[in-house]
């Protein structure tokens, strides 16, 4: 399916990048009706990032195909979180550029960019108040009122009774689902997930995994998911990336990555023999 969208994107690359997903622009060309859907392919071009003189990412070049789940694995301190923060411009690269569907992220209004690229963190970081207030936060910032909170709750697998609950009364798993619903309320086209299940129990982890998988299937979101858990990467990833000491070691289809790794470091990582980077 993604290949079809890919070619559409190439044909209609002139279409305004900011057109919302779900708007589905219909263009009538004599007798043929063509539907344009956004692909959100994310490309890193020779990207490096340094902080306080230390090089965290070194010359990363990679293309994340749109509408797929890409899992990022690697030891602690490998630069995984840094890599995804570059996409929604929580930080900017020291060198190189990041393109979304061929457009440099630096040319897009940063607030607009972050609304289009949702991010979920390891901790839910919910604000004090009710679930409803949390979900309304993003839309409220852009002046949207009376959004359909129940709809976003239902996507996150929570029933409408949750809306009025105080976030303090929720379990860790429920909080993380509210955090995902809050991110989805901005109607993002891409999701960046920084170990969203690492603090959750196995049942909650499974619920979140299914939820994210459904988002990809039904809404064609591009998802970049950092995980420490190799089994999780195998379960959910279409593609897997290995980072080590700030370098991209291997990027392949998840099945190939785990069954036929091309790099010696990948082999060591899969065997659990790759040491963690000492910060």
């Amino acid at each position: 399916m993604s290949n079809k969208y890919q070619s559409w994107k190439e044909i209609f690359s002139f279409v305004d990048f900011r057109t919302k997903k779900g708007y589905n622009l219909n263009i009538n060309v004599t007798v043929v009706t063509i539907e344009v859907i956004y692909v959100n392919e994310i490309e890193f071009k020779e990207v490096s990032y340094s902080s306080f003189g230390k090089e965290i990412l070194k010359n990363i070049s990679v293309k994340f195909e749109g509408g797929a789940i890409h899992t990022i694995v690697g030891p602690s301190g490998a630069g995984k979180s840094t890599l995804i923060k570059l996409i929604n411009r929580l930080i900017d690269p020291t060198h190189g550029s990041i393109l979304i569907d061929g457009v440099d992220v630096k040319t897009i209004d940063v607030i607009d960019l972050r609304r289009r690229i949702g991010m979920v963190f390891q901790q839910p970081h919910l604000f004090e108040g009710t679930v409803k207030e949390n979900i309304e936060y993003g839309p409220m910032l852009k002046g949207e009122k009376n959004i359909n909170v129940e709809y976003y709750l239902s996507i996150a697998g929570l029933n409408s009774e949750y809306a009025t609950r105080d976030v303090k009364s929720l379990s860790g798993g429920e909080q993380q689902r509210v955090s995902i619903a809050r991110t989805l309320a901005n109607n993002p086209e891409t999701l960046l997930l920084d170990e969203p299940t690492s603090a959750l129990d196995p049942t909650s982890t499974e619920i979140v995994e299914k939820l994210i998988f459904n988002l990809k299937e039904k809404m064609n979101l591009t998802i970049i998911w950092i995980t420490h858990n190799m089994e999780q990467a195998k379960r959910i990833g279409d593609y897997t990336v290995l980072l080590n000491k700030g370098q991209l070691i291997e990027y392949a289809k998840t099945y190939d990555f785990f069954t036929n790794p091309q790099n010696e470091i990948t082999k060591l990582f899969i065997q659990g023999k790759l040491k963690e980077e000492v910060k």
Partner: protein
Amino acid sequence: MSVLSLTLASSLVLISIFVSYYQKLGIEKEIVIGTIRAVVQLTIVGYILHYIFAANSALFTLAMVTLMIVVAGNNASKRGKGIPNVFYFITFSIALSAAITISLLILFGNIHFRPQEVIPVSGMIVGNSMVASGLAVSRLKDEIKNKSEEIEAYLSLGATSRQAAQKVIKTAIKTGMIPTVYSMKTLGIVQLPGMMTGLILGGVDPIDAVKYQIMVAFMLASTVAISCFSVTFLTYREFFTSNHQLKEVGN
């Protein structure tokens, strides 16, 4: 008070030196240096004030107040070490709180623009402003450092720097203001404030002294609010880039 009785009173310092020596606190040297500095500084200030009061010059009065503000700004900015321009932000905030509060006191007829009144009142304002803005800046720095991921969670939902920092700004302002608000609650019960004590010792009727002290309490409430508000809103921007990114700030 005669010079002889003041000299005899200096023996009180020996008690603190003895305690330090006996308990091996190792601060005898600090006590001696502190005592000498206090005596020298106060003596110099006494002579300067004596001269300024006699000259009754607006220029000298303003120069003295400016000096107080700059010294206070320099002192308080140590609490925001590592934050760019923090000295200017704190000094400006102290100056702003002093300017507004003193202007209002003169306008309301509480004090007159005379060195004898403006300088001591400014001293109290600047001193409290210094402590409050130092506390606010230090708390702001700690909060941003400790809550960086939470701030980034707000930013990634499309919040501006200002919106993302709203919670830490509130905490910082509150931290700066709380000591003054709490001390107002116990004023006159737990502590007889310096100004009132001084007036009573100087022979002023306690009822009149109390009037001045009430004015001081009102004045300090406004002072710390203005300085904390100003310094926090000026400083938080230093933690963000123009693209609403949280900067990495070293220690």
